[in-house]
């Protein structure tokens, strides 16, 4: 890919006029339309919006699971054509392999890379310790709580040390306290590794707590409504006046789109 004209390094994610049209029950749904976004290397960006705003669609496009039907999308300087371990995904449903122990789950990506046994063991040991999972090494996912499962899922992608993490509402199914502690762990890991993180959420507070920039999306077709930079120093205090001022601003933006989503639902044209 050619570098941008200003001579800076290419962004980790670059979307220009990205569009995605689905066919749902014989009806065409424009999930994304003219979506533009640059995510810098090492940046933490949250995509925020109501259900149906296309935030997960965009994430899946970057992951290569479901390619855009229009526009230009590059990740790490290359056009996205297929899934790859350089853009590791953390799912809301964890997607741990239930027939593998915690250890085997974490080692899976390394195995795919053909890493030797000793190296796999070393990485697994380090991640188990780092994420407080040491006692769960030989357990199966069904024996773990939601928070523990998501820790394993995070360890599983960190094991292959990808430059970019794609996170699809990863903490959406967790209780509020577990969510907060995982948010803090994620920020700690991010501060250590400086990976690029694209994080999809419908939690307004979560997005402001985590992100460098919050991308508020419009409801159907999904475009960028506004990008809200969050310059508050970390660790952020959700009770502070500055945090709340931002929260108010972002809430107003999101609720406008939520109103459109609800109007759509009332007409019965949403899915």
């Amino acid at each position, binding site marked *: 890919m050619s570098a941008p004209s200003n001579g800076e390094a290419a962004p980790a994610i670059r979307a220009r006029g990205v569009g995605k049209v689905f066919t749902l029950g014989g009806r065409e749904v424009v999930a994304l339309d003219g979506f533009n976004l640059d995510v810098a290397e090492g940046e933490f960006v949250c995509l925020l919006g109501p259900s149906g705003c296309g935030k997960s669609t965009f994430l899946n496009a970057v*992951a290569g*699971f479901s390619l855009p039907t229009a526009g230009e999308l590059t990740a790490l300087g290359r056009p996205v054509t297929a*899934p*790859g*371990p350089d*853009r*590791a*995904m953390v*799912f809301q*449903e964890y*997607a*741990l*392999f*239930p*027939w*593998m122990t915690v250890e085997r789950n974490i080692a*899976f*990506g390394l195995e*795919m*890379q053909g890493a030797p046994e000793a190296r796999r063991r070393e990485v697994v040991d380090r991640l188990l310790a780092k994420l407080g999972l040491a006692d769960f090494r030989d357990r*199966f*996912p*069904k024996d773990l709580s939601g928070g523990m499962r998501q820790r394993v899922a995070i360890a*599983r*992608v960190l094991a*292959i040390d990808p430059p970019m993490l794609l996170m699809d509402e990863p903490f959406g199914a967790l209780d509020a306290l577990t969510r907060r502690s995982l948010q803090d762990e994620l920020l700690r890991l991010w501060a250590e590794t400086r990976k690029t993180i694209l994080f999809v959420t419908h939690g307004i507070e979560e997005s402001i707590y985590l992100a460098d920039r919050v991308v508020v999306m419009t409801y159907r077709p999904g475009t960028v409504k506004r990008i809200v930079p969050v310059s508050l120093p970390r660790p952020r205090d959700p009770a502070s006046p500055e945090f709340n001022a931002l929260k108010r601003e972002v809430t107003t933006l999101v609720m406008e789109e939520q109103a459109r989503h609800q109007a759509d639902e009332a007409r019965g044209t949403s899915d």
Partner: protein
Amino acid sequence: MGRAAALARSVVVPVVILLAWEGISRAGWVTPLILPSPTAVAVRWWAYLSPYAPFDPAAGSRLGWLLSGELPHDALTSLTRILVGFGIGGGLALPLGLLMGARPLVYELFNPVLQLLRPIPPIAYIPLAILWFGLGNPPAYFLISLGAFFPVLMNTIAGVRSVDAIYLRAARNLGAGEWTLFHRIMVPAAMPYILTGVRVGIGVAFIVVIVAEMIAVNAGLGYRILEAREYFWSDKVIAGMATIGLCGLGIDLFMARLNAWLLRWHRGAEG
């Protein structure tokens, strides 16, 4: 309380039935030819079970002697036929089912023929089995493998088709290729269904072996019942039936244990 009470409850009805049966026989309400008494059956069963000759260390091991009676020989013969027949039928059904589940093209090619053949009970193949394979073990193997084939096949197809797409995405995302997806993700994810198919298939094989032994062989539990009928040995017929029941129960308990171990990762496996 607990186990002892549960055990007591589970034997109440069988004991009452046996006592009533014994009473009816002893009262002379039916002739022993029509319905021999339980004690007569038990005596006959013991004779059927016992070795022909007293133990002779020169002739072989004690275990060999214990199993030298007619019943152990019949039971082992029948179980071997089940194993061989199931091995052939299940061995063919498993790869075909995996392919049909994973590849729509293979499914479309084979499904019409299989749906047509599936409702034909193995017993209907008896004339052809004798015509094609003559007498002895081969037609029995053929019939048993037919009986085992469809349960394994249908369950395997259903299992592969029900694999949650999120596991495939997660594996692809971590760098898995097609072959890895198949044998590390699809096969274990489909395993609960496959094992259900195996269990049902063995059950059908057990039914078919008895029928198959009534046509063209000279050993085995099915053959022995038929032989006993020729001589009007009702007590031996019932003793043979009881043996079939016990063998079936044993196989099913073994399979249940095996399932529980193989599916120890599975949410439903441990209640």
